[in-house]
């Protein structure tokens, strides 16, 4: 596995991701987390090109825009987030199959219990999943 197991994710930024997930439900929401050294410093919402309740694909043009912006800000992509509006916060087979960024944290928000959204963080590499620790 790559890097640290802990992602430092300040509450205000975490709340932005939760709000995005809630605003997109029942469709899946997705976005990129920018920062340095496993610390989230910025949240970039990305359009889900699939506009689907069960899959996401980040709009490629927006992906490029954000990656260039991160470069300009001297940040790295520390994480990728998406929501599971009706299922648990755990990587699905689809998530594992399409996880091409072993160096990044994958943050998943579950809205299965809509009154109590749950966020978990993982590393994924060639189908293997390991859960990380979210630190406020």
């Amino acid at each position: 596995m790559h890097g640290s197991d802990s992602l430092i994710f300040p509450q205000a930024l975490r709340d932005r991701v939760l709000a995005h997930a809630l605003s997109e439900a029942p469709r899946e929401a997705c976005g990129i987390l920018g920062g340095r050294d496993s610390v989230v410093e910025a949240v970039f919402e990305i359009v889900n090109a699939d506009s689907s309740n069960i899959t996401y694909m980040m709009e490629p043009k927006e992906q490029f825009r954000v990656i260039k912006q991160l470069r300009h800000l001297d940040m790295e992509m520390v994480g990728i987030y998406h929501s599971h509006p009706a299922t648990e916060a755990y990587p699905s087979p689809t998530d594992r199959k399409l996880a091409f960024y072993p160096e990044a944290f994958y943050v998943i928000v579950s809205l299965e219990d809509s009154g109590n959204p749950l966020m978990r963080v993982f590393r994924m590499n060639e189908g293997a999943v390991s859960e990380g620790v979210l630190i406020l």
Partner: protein
Amino acid sequence: MEVSVTINGAVESLGEGSTVLDVLSAKKARPEMMAVEVNGELLRKDDYGVTALKDGDSMEFLPYMAGGRGSS
């Protein structure tokens, strides 16, 4: 003869006539997983092998970011 191309933000020298597909292959990036932009324009996968990079071009590539719960 070489051309100077900015690839993911870094300037690199390539042989004249190098295509997008040549660059992806050299970097061991699987084309079917990659989104590619040349000079700010998204490229169709069918064009990766026929798009030659010119001096001063800018190429960006990255793996798609996708996933999801995946079944209904």
